[in-house]
């Protein structure tokens, strides 16, 4: 029998996440070699950049040895070594199961993209239009994007929440919004 046919080790007690699996709603994301390789490459690139930039830190006094460059360079070096190991593992071994990660849905991707755009717009509108209109609009638009419909979801709740936030921060906590 090949080892690939053999079962994975099972813990003595149910693993974290099993309970939600039992609930019937959990759809685990499929194992993926490209994701494993990509994450190792990103980690490798980031560690190499850290090492490179650490060497370019300008010091007021060059003392050599254990100076302010030393710690980030050490971290960069260790990061490069670990990322290489992760890359080798990703290329050589079969990709590990992603039981604890829920599979993304098509509608979820669309909703997430909409929320990203709305949040960006909010950050642009807030300084120009002011906190109250910008926040009310964000709440209405995001509730709609998340599937909320009707007068209560799209008018009453956003209005009450915006008012409550303004009162809490501006009036009680004296935060300049």
């Amino acid at each position, binding site marked *: 029998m090949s080892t690939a046919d053999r079962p994975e080790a099972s813990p003595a007690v149910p693993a974290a996440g099993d*309970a939600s699996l039992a609930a*019937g*709603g959990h759809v685990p994301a499929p194992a993926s070699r490209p994701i494993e390789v990509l994450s190792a490459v990103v980690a490798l690139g980031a560690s190499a950049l850290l090492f490179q930039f650490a060497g370019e830190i300008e010091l*007021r006094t060059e003392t050599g040895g254990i100076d302010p460059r030393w710690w980030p360079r050490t971290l960069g070096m260790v990061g490069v070594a670990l990322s290489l190991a992760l890359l080798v593992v990703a290329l050589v071994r079969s990709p590990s199961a992603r039981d604890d*990660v*829920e599979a993304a849905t098509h509608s979820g991707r669309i909703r997430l993209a909409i929320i990203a755009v709305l*949040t960006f717009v909010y950050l642009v509108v807030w*300084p120009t239009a002011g906190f109250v209109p910008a926040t009310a609009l964000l709440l209405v638009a995001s509730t709609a994007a*998340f*599937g909320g419909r009707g007068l209560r979801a799209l008018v009453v709740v956003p209005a009450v929440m915006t008012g409550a936030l303004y009162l809490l921060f501006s009036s009680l906590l004296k935060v300049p919004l």
Partner: protein
Amino acid sequence: MNAVVEGLTALTDPVAIVGMLIGLLVGTLVGVFPGVTGSMAVALAAGFTLTLEPVQGLAVLLTIYVGANYGDRVPAILVNTPGTPAAIATSLDGYPMAKQGRAGLALVMSSVVTTIGILLSIVLFVLAARPVASFALRFGPAEMFALVIFGLTVMVSISSKSLLKGTLAGIAGLAIATVGRDPITGDARFVFGINDLNSGLPFIAVIIGLFGIAELFDQVLTYRAGKVKPISSLGRWWPQKSEYRQVAKPTAVSSVIGMGVGVVPAAGGDIAGLIGWDRAKRMSKEPEKFGNGSLEGIAGADAAASATLGGALTTTLALGIPGDSVMAVMIGSLIIWGLQPGPSLFSDHPDLIASIAGIMVIATVLSFVISLVRTKGMVRLLDLPNHYLWAAILVFCIVGTYTTSNNLYTVVVMLVAGVVGLAMKRTGFPPGPVVLGLLLGPLAESNLRRALLIDGPSIFLTRPISLTLLALTVLAVVLPVVAHKRRERKAVKEYDDQPPRVGV
């Protein structure tokens, strides 16, 4: 005035009382809504409490911490979905009991053992925290560095399936902590001419991004309409005397387990609950009932998960190393209030320690009372549509982050951290070590550099405490690997020993 009296008197402050009531409400709600974890709620609330006095802010944060420990059992029992990871083991027997028409009994018993677990753990905190802190006062740079590395290693080995990914996440946190001024010489590092970066990345923003926004984005990305409806028939409510007797032993044993797990840096209620459930099963006269609606199973799981709170608090305040992920977030708030968790906290602010113990006891008693009267309303709350919750979390994350600095730059940092956190979650990199690395990075770096300048690398091996801590660090890495290999070999052996299947 006596520090204890002074600390407890501080709790009569009306703002602290209102803070506890708000924390109680938020904590219970946080627990009830699956997916909103205690770490996420405390991270969010941290943004709102920074303008308060430390005791007032802690009243909110600690009460959320306690309240979530009660609320999270409700969905675990009624819809088989743990409200927070600490209630994973609750659902193993809670939901089967609910399906048998014994949901009321499961909910009440869960509240009773949770209260016992938390109160016992607070006794541990009161008795052990000061001696541990006094011992830690002997720590020099070598010991402090070894302690930070030990805490970080334990969090890596606990929070990640992959040691490589967990360690890389820890290194990412340590690297982010180097942005800003060097802790010894004051030289600027990785500032790139941006003024805001001189004081480093705002860690509350990073924490809210990693725990709050990343979790929200992940839920939005993966949402599927639920098929499991809450159980509305709760059945009998109050346990009988024989049932109290039945759960006494697992409650006591699991409480001790929980306190032990809580003291271990970074280990929280999820791990303790599963160990407590397993231990209760092993010593039960009716192990076959476990997983099928055992009251002992509920007691074992919940007593252990709850008893981690006092242990986690002890490690956090006495050593400055977070006892669990909520405590990691809370350390951020304490630092912003000018309170550095660690041995000196006990000598500099003895009254604060009494206030913290007082808040924990009051929060536990209030949560217990609320948990007994609120459950029918909670069942209705479980039907609340996600669009209200998600929109509120999004706005609260943004506004909460903004209030920490009144600067949109902080919000941008939080959103970037959220996107990075989502990518990490989807690729198996745990966020816990990043936060820990970020919070403890300056401590690790300055102590390592000082230790090396004092006596070179040999200092770590010639001083007994640092040597012991480094040995424990090695064990924290090696033991899980060995245990995993053993389980793998056992599983393969069992598979090989099975008789061959004929004809498929």
